[in-house]
């Protein structure tokens, strides 16, 4: 059981896909303008990594080695397309899916998904693989939400679309920062998060 706990906690902290493995950077720059989008993206990736790892782990002894990447891709694409189709079908998520545009589809190419399947699911039993997949998705999602929090607050003055910076401040001359909306700022913010993470966790520092 202790092993399973470690499987779950590692991708969240010591093996965080974004801050330690530095995977999935592209989409984390693109979908973090608003918290709502980041949250949906985080959930989508978590579902995709979890289910893909589960299915690939179930198939791990039958997959022909020469075509294993292709089989993994087919499984991952299936999950991604399913998530996309469901998001499009429901009224509540339709608008968010629209604003995330291509990035839901691009989860297929998110290195975290394939990375966890290759590194973990193919060598482990289904349940630990599911846990690892979900935890990796959550580790990715957590960073996404932190970045989106700062970007939406500083860039639009809102959180989840609700105005939090009072109008009085705007009247006094405060303006939303346009740079924060653009992808380069997400990269700067990510750098800061990695910096903080490394200074707290001494084990991550190179000698």
């Amino acid at each position, binding site marked *: 059981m202790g092993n399973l706990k470690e499987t779950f906690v590692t991708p969240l902290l010591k093996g965080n896909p974004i801050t330690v493995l530095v995977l999935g950077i592209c989409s984390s720059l693109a979908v973090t*303008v608003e918290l709502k989008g980041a949250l949906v993206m985080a959930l989508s990736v978590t579902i995709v990594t979890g289910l893909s790892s589960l299915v690939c782990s179930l198939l791990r002894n*039958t*997959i022909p080695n020469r*075509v294993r990447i292709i089989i993994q891709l087919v499984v991952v694409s*299936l999950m991604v397309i*399913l998530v996309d189709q*469901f998001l*499009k079908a*429901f009224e509540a998520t*339709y608008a968010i899916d629209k604003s995330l545009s291509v990035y839901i589809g691009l989860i297929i190419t998110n290195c975290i998904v394939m990375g966890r399947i290759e590194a973990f699911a193919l060598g482990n039993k289904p349940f630990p693989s599911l846990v690892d997949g979900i935890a990796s998705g959550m580790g990715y999602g957590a960073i996404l939400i932190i970045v989106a929090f700062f970007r939406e607050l500083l860039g639009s003055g809102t959180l989840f679309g609700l105005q939090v910076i009072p109008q009085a401040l705007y009247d006094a001359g405060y303006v939303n920062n346009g740079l924060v909306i653009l992808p380069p700022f997400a990269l700067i913010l990510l750098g800061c998060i990695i910096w903080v993470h490394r200074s707290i966790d001494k084990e991550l520092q190179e000698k």
Partner: protein
Amino acid sequence: MNTNSNAYTVIYTTIVVVLVAAILAFVSQKLGPMQAANEKAETVSQILTAAGFGEKEHWAEIGNKATLDFYKENIESSILVDIDAQQVGNLDGSAAQVYSTSQLKAQNYNIKDGSSLQLPVYQFKNKVMVFPVYGAGLWGPVWGYIAVADDFKTIVGAYFDHEGETPGLGGKIKDDPSFRAQFAGKVIDLSDEKPFSIVKGGAPEGKANAVDAVTGATMTSKGLDAAINTWVAAYGKTLLSGEAVNAFVEAVNECTDTTAVKEVLEETLKTVEE
């Protein structure tokens, strides 16, 4: 069992792919109608936003059904016209039937290569007329809806959308309310060489048929400019005939006896023929 033999590999991949395809086909079949309903409600909400019935967020708040109901209540007629302003079809307003983005795309090709057109005109009960525009932005298509008042010239509102313009730059055509707000009160001037302009660096003072482009999004602004002018040209005769009818009605109203009405009628017929 040898999982590395050729036969095993071929059979295995075939089974996996067929299975996945079957799952996807099944899901797409089941969810298709729901997705289509969402897309339709989105289009209707864009048309209503352009026509000035409410902000875009309002329609998201009240939900799909209420949005469609509002449209059905307020639509006077929704017809299809060709380049000569002849009615060539009908959209069922009571079912909130509207042109989808892919249908606009098809019509855009027809405009470009000069084939016969079926362009939608949405006429609301409050005399506002809405027509779509469609064209190419920087990364993908841009489209929108322009609402004109009953003089067929004055714009009362507009709404634009895009597939993948850069957020914060080209994306502003949709996200920045102040860009859209510029359109209200401007006019479409068909006598001008360019009926409507989106001007980089700011519209000249006093020019009634121009708005400022989006800063940092030259290509998107140019694309939208081209989309508007291409489609306004295609709707040109529809707009002009609307104006002609207005002028005719006004002239008839001023008449005091039947001979005067006859004169006006003859004169109008003459100009129409010309």
